[in-house]
């Protein structure tokens, strides 16, 4: 150092610096093969860069090869926690395009199963959320209730996760004989458990301190990033497709769209907890009066959509799922695009996670409720 400037050996040898760590593709907190490149200063996050594509299966491209009946089962594999709702989105699109009017029975059964799916998805999320902030027991409790829903699914259509129960024109089969009984038994079992969940996690002082005021997502950036679902409603923006563009039997049930104003991690948590109550409310209205009717409308053996563009949106457990089809009149679509909720919800991560610590970051990605196959498709 002969330049005449003061030489500071500490500055020279022991300077602090930001560094990068890879969270994922294999990491317990990313719930799948999501890779997040974190730039960190000590424990504080300076930048988050999501790296996608580890589970890309080109579902949209496969859809261009398959016929319309076959497309339905592929959507199971996108957001596997709300597979029934995904199936329904495609079926609704085909039905609307072909102007098939499904019977009330189909609509009601679809809605009940939608809400069961939503509860099951939120239950899994709740268990995993607890696990992410360190309370490992919540996972088993959440799964215990989820198991009952899965049993109902399994009895209804033979599969627990990849249901493929919706087909264009209705349902693959009628519901099984014990469906109403089992669903009621589940509701009876589940209602007191919600209070237990609140005792165990929601009211817990450590959990409150870990989540309140963390990862605040403002209304403006929520809208700007196209965030949907409970994540958006946690910031106080109305975006519930069930209310705004009712499909199936949602126009005949009354339920509340849950809002929170804060937009922080705890608000997003609360939205989901309260949505479960609303789902119970919806199911209770429908379960006792499932109308009689056909469960499957007659469709052509080979479904061909008329030429044109079609769009259908539904509210999955994670947000708005949009299905967009360009048809050239052939038996498979010319172009199929899924607007998946997880992708837009993930894009907001850099906005809300910067400045928080690693521990909070885990809680934040947990309340975004990401399903990685839904992001990558």
């Amino acid at each position, binding site marked *: 150092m002969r330049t005449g400037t003061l030489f500071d050996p500490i500055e020279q040898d022991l300077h602090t610096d930001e560094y990068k760590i890879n969270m994922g593709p294999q990491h317990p907190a990313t719930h799948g093969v999501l890779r997040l490149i974190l730039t960190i200063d000590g424990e504080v996050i300076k930048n988050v860069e999501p790296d996608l594509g580890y589970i890309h299966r080109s579902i949209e491209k496969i859809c261009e090869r398959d016929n319309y009946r076959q497309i339905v089962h592929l959507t199971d594999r996108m957001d596997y926690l709300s597979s029934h709702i995904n199936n329904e989105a495609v079926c609704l699109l085909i039905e609307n395009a072909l102007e098939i009017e499904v019977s009330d029975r189909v609509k009601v059964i679809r809605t009940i199963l939608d809400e069961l799916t939503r509860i099951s998805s939120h239950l899994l999320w709740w268990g995993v959320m607890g696990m992410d902030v360190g309370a490992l027991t919540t996972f088993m409790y959440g799964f215990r209730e989820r198991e009952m829903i899965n049993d109902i699914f*399994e009895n209804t259509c033979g599969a627990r996760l990849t249901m493929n129960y919706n087909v264009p024109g209705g349902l693959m089969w009628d519901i099984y004989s014990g469906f109403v009984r089992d669903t009621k038994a589940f509701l009876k079992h589940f209602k007191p458990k919600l209070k237990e969940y609140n005792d165990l996690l929601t009211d817990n002082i450590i959990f409150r301190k870990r989540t309140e005021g963390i990862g605040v997502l403002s209304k403006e950036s929520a809208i700007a990033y196209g965030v949907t679902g409970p994540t958006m409603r946690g910031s106080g923006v109305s975006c519930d497709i069930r209310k705004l563009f009712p499909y199936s039997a949602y126009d005949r049930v009354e339920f509340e769209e849950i809002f929170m104003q804060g937009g922080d991690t705890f608000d997003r948590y609360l939205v989901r907890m309260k949505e479960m109550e609303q789902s119970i409310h919806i199911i209770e209205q429908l379960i006792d009066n499932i109308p009689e009717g056909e469960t499957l409308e007659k469709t052509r053996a080979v479904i061909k959509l008329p030429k044109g563009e079609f769009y259908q949106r539904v509210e999955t457990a994670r947000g708005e799922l949009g299905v967009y089809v360009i048809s050239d009149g052939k038996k498979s679509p010319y172009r199929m695009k899924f607007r998946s909720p997880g992708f837009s919800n993930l894009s907001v991560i850099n906005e809300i996670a910067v400045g928080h610590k690693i521990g909070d970051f885990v809680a934040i990605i947990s309340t975004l409720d990401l399903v990685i196959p839904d992001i990558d498709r």
Partner: protein
Amino acid sequence: MGYFSDIIHGFKTLLTGMKVTGKYFFNARKEIITQQYPDNRDTLTFPERFRGRVDMPHNENNEHRCTGCQACEIACPNGSIEIIWDRVLNPETGKKKKAIEKHIYHLSMCTMCNLCIVACPTDAIVMTHEFELAAYDRSDLTFVLNKPGSKLMAGVEE
């Protein structure tokens, strides 16, 4: 006095949480939800509609109901069904008719979507309740569903 009331409130919430888990701990005998899987294999019950692997039921005379119409092959999204068929001379009527030689099922590609079962006009194939489908070799995942020497059940085609 917010300092001390915070502490007391905090402790109260912690104790409520401990009450919940404690309740389960002391009732552990009744509340267990897990199953001891390989032990209870014999007593496992399946829903009627359970989707295991695809199979073709045969009756006691080694007859099946598959006419070789290939509806399942077309319906399958993954190409897991392959049908090798031929026209065979029917000695009674003297006409040549389509009959399957091999109904090949690739379990490795199957997603258990049930579309082939729905598509089959003669209910020739069903979903079994078999669920332990892992194999050590990929070739073990290819099945020929019709048994050797089997033929079409009479009266299916009408």
